[in-house]
């Protein structure tokens, strides 16, 4: 904890500078874990279908947003999809997965009813278009992480 003083109307006042450290561990739960295991072991992107409204969620989740149904109907969706929107970050911070620039995209995978947030790669910024078709590129070494998908690259 560092302390410094600053002048205020001729008097020293103390300012405390610090950083807060709070450890955390977040369980992905059984459904989230299976999604990650499929990515790691089979390079498959799994969704979950709601039997009531037929909506397919990607990533898979256990409860339907609209119907409040408990979900257990796993479906594999395509590794190909369409870019719905994107943003390019030229000043990345240490918590982000790669250096600058990062192109973030929201991708609707074929067979899914939801947008999937990930990165776009192997793409010239000039080339970026809403509606462009992309395909997942997987890491060679996978560890059960959303980043086992390296990025989505434009389909030739």
């Amino acid at each position, binding site marked *: *904890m560092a302390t410094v003083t600053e002048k205020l109307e001729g008097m020293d006042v*103390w300012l*405390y500078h*610090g950083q*807060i*450290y*709070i*450890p*955390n*561990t*977040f*369980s*992905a*739960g*059984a*459904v*989230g874990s299976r999604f990650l295991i499929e990515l790691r072991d089979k390079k498959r992107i799994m969704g979950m279908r709601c039997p009531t409204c037929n909506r397919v969620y990607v990533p898979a*989740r*256990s*409860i*339907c*947003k*609209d119907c*409040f149904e408990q979900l257990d109907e796993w479906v594999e969706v395509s590794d190909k999809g369409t870019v719905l929107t994107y943003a390019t970050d030229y000043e990345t911070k240490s918590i982000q997965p790669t250096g600058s620039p990062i192109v973030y995209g929201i991708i609707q995978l074929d067979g899914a009813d939801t947008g999937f947030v990930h990165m776009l790669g192997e793409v010239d910024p000039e080339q970026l278009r809403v509606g462009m078709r992309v395909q997942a590129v997987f890491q060679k070494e996978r560890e059960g992480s959303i980043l086992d998908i390296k990025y989505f690259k434009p389909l030739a």
Partner: protein
Amino acid sequence: MANRVAIVGIGQTYHTSKRDDVNQPEMVAEAVRSALTDAQLSIRDIESVFTGNMETFEGIFLPDHGMAAEIGALGKPGFKVNTGGTTGASAVAEGFYMVSSGLYDISMVIGFEKQDCGDTTAAISAAAVPVWAKGAATGAIGEFAKQALSYMEITGGTEEHAAMVRVKADKGACRNPYAHLKLGLQSIDEVLQSPYLVWPLRLLDFCPQSCGACALILATEKKAKKIHKKPVWLADVEVVHQEPFRAGVFGDPTGKETYTQHVACEKIYKRNNITDVRKQIDMAEIYEPSNWEELNLYEHLHFCKKGESWKLIEKGITEIEGEFPVNPSGGVISTNPIGATPVIRVAEAALQIRGDAGEHQVTRDTKTAIATALGGPNWTVMFLLKRSL
């Protein structure tokens, strides 16, 4: 006049140290579904949802935002409250205000904490006010150690009395299917042999870190009678704020501070013409992170005269089968999913009034109960519950 408010649905998860099988929203959903089942309602019947959680304790921010779907709050009004240890009780008070005011006929309140996610003491200490508190931050354990010492000095109560309270709590927990710690304690010797965390507070003198959630469905009088055959009335609520005592958060060796419990009691007992607490109220579920604090609260909630709280446990008055049972559920010292803990106090008091507490149902016929919460800088939230109005 404000609308009368009843509890028409009660649901809680089981409690344990780790829930790797579910993520935080999925765990909370278990309590929500359980409350809906109890009320025989659909999630569509719930008009608004209020949550309580100590978000830094799980090391993520705005956890309520990530669980709107799982708790049935999507597209509905409601928000999260966070007031320290009283968080869950503040959420119940919030739901009470909303239904009582006539804004909603049916509201749900949910308290939750998944303590396998974070580090409560690290969060309390890291986020303490840097100027005065950070260097002295010891988490809750240090505060309750000071309280225990003050208690002994002021009242003459002993470690043996605190151990009796601990054994009583365990008896309740062992009969409560939702309780976390079920130790099967046979005698006070087992408590007195447990190691000191911070003298004079022992390992068995303090609550565990639990994962769990508890949901209540509140309804207006008109709706309540149609929803549940045994509605439990939230007859009165009081919330009292405080700042931390510089001399100690939960005990006041200076004798000059205002105890929020006294303020809450003065208002609730006066409004409800309660002059003899143990006669007019049948049982209590109070917020006691430590057995020493339970003794402290007997006095400050006026269950006994000043300095005589240890006599209540010595005479067995607060046992499940006693004249005035306190925390037959096993209490906070057995189960502490922080944001859920005060909701559980209200839920357990309501179950006693309904006669639905199962193996830990108290012997005394419970028509009237109180539930309290304590936390942060010794705030108090206090509820009076009744079988009939």
